């Protein structure tokens, strides 16, 4: 074989080798890009999931400061809801049926709360802790909280019709509302953190909710909240009642309805 033929063959082999290397490189790059996009997509999902638990501003402050201890004092309206007689229900029903009823209830309550700009902070067993004004400034948080409670009353009533038709036991809900200051922020352990509102306001809302059984009514709110409410929200005073953690007996009210024309709101 002549020298030029050797050179041509060598060049051919080199080009072929180069083409194979290039092809492999491209394939590797595509594979890495695919992995990167998949990782990015996972990250997106995590971000979306995280944003359901903490407001964007909190997430950004954590990222910017590198610290997890982010919290601020806020005035918030707290709604605490609990199912009446749920323990007895637990003993009567098969677990899958019970879970189905409970999920249907939570779904309807979540809708009623979010439709009025509330955010569910946590589910505690069959209880719901919802906040109004914790994430963004909300000058109408008191009205929103009470309207959410009334929407929950309606939703439970509609759900009960459905349960009755299916031959299942009906639900009764007790709701307590209070307005006050507390600390909103990320709390928990390194393994489990959540965006929460902590302070006496939450305890008072929970205690007021307990009083719904005592007064045989479904929605009770405190005087502090009532003072901020739209006068069209009709409430009935209940006897001042001592509650744990509060020095003086608490002035409380049962919520009746909102008096408004069809075109007004909702």
């Amino acid at each position, binding site marked *: 074989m002549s020298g030029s033929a050797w050179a041509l063959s060598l060049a051919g082999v080199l080009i072929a080798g180069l083409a194979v290397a290039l092809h492999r490189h491209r394939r590797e790059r595509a594979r890495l*890009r695919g992995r990167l*996009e998949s990782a*990015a*997509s996972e*990250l*997106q999902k995590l*971000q*979306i999931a995280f944003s359901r638990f903490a407001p*964007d*501003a909190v997430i950004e402050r954590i*990222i910017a400061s590198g610290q997890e201890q982010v919290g601020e004092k806020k005035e918030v309206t707290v709604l605490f809801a609990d199912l009446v007689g749920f323990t007895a229900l637990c003993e009567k029903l098969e677990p899958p049926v019970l879970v189905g009823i409970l999920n249907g209830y939570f779904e309807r309550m979540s809708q009623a709360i979010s*439709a009025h700009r509330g955010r569910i902070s946590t589910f505690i067993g069959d209880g719901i802790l919802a906040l109004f004004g914790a994430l*963004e*400034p*909300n*000058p*109408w948080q008191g*009205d929103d909280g009470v309207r959410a409670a009334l929407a929950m009353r309606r939703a439970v009533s509609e759900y009960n019709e459905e349960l009755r038709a299916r031959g299942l036991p009906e639900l009764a809900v007790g709701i307590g509302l209070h307005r006050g200051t507390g600390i909103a922020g990320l709390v928990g352990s390194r393994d489990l953190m959540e965006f929460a509102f902590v302070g006496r306001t939450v305890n008072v809302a929970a205690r007021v909710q307990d009083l719904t059984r005592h007064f045989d009514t479904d929605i009770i709110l405190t005087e502090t909240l009532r003072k901020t*409410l*739209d*006068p*069209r929200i009709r409430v009935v005073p209940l006897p001042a009642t001592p509650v744990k953690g509060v020095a003086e007996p608490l002035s409380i009210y049962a919520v009746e309805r909102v008096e*408004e*024309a069809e*075109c*007004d*709101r909702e």
Partner: protein
Amino acid sequence: MALMREIEWESCLLPPVPAPELQRRFQREVGRPGTAIRYFADNPWAAEVLIRLSVEMENRVELDAELADLVTLVVSQEASCRYCFAAMRTLLRVLGMPEARIARLEQDLMTADLNERERGALEFARRLARSNPLIRASDLEALRRLGYSELEIDELVAATALNVFFNRLSTLCALPPFRMEELPDRWYMRMFRPLVAMKLRKLRRHTELEPLRPEEREGPFSPVVVALDGLPAARALHSVLEGMWASPTLPRRVKALVFAVVARALGCDRSEAEATRLLLEDGLAREEIDQALAHLASPALDPVERIAVPFARETVWYQPAQIQRHGRQVLETLSREQFIELVTVAALANVVCRLGFTWGARG
């Protein structure tokens, strides 16, 4: 674009109406097809605003054009505006930005390949668009430290404000983003991309400073306009605000109420005080204003105001589908012309009240 495409979005509230004359005017003045104007053609003032502010979206004095585009992308994402995001994504793809870079920007501003200066500007734009809490004059210091001139900062503020406006206008009417979201991946877009890019680059206008005339420094909310003095956007903002108060479709009192409610929601005291001043001039008593703002209702409000006031509150922070459904209910009660005016006023109120930090920035 998984994130934006996952946002729930209602069908369009306003079927487009034929408006060939307006479309031609839009094409002539803005330089690109004005298909969106067909949705607003029933309200002459709103159509005028759309043209006027679309022109300003293309004007730059000193701010880098690519940065301004990124502001649009980031602010549209912040506002969950699928329509504006899709439009800007298409534009950036046509101008040659790789999809991967757009995706990284969409996924996370913090890890996207931006330099510190760009990231600082985009973070500022996003915070201004969100306004929770409101921007303060001191927040501009960070931009100065990054080397932005006062003029560039003003332009950044104006560019963000324009996007706040267009995001709301598009979202409140649920303008359809679906075709636009597919557009960059169409074969014909890929084939003709260089030609389209050339055409689009020509639209970018470098403009000179244009100080406001004395009469443009007067009128309701003029301190916000004056704060942007020199930018063509200031003149445009003055003009659309004047047109808004003068437009006969909705009374001035309804518009002032919308401004007052948006100001209350955002916590912008100066904007609320200005809107209250207008409401007092228009015959509402102080107690009636207080009640309307405290509870978004008052016996003193007329039927249109009773609809406009709670709706205005929803336009500050929202989930698109939720406010679009509310908008559909509003549209059942108002005429189409009134509805277009209401959403345009609400969008402007969100701009002006978010710029509350600029009050008194310039004499």
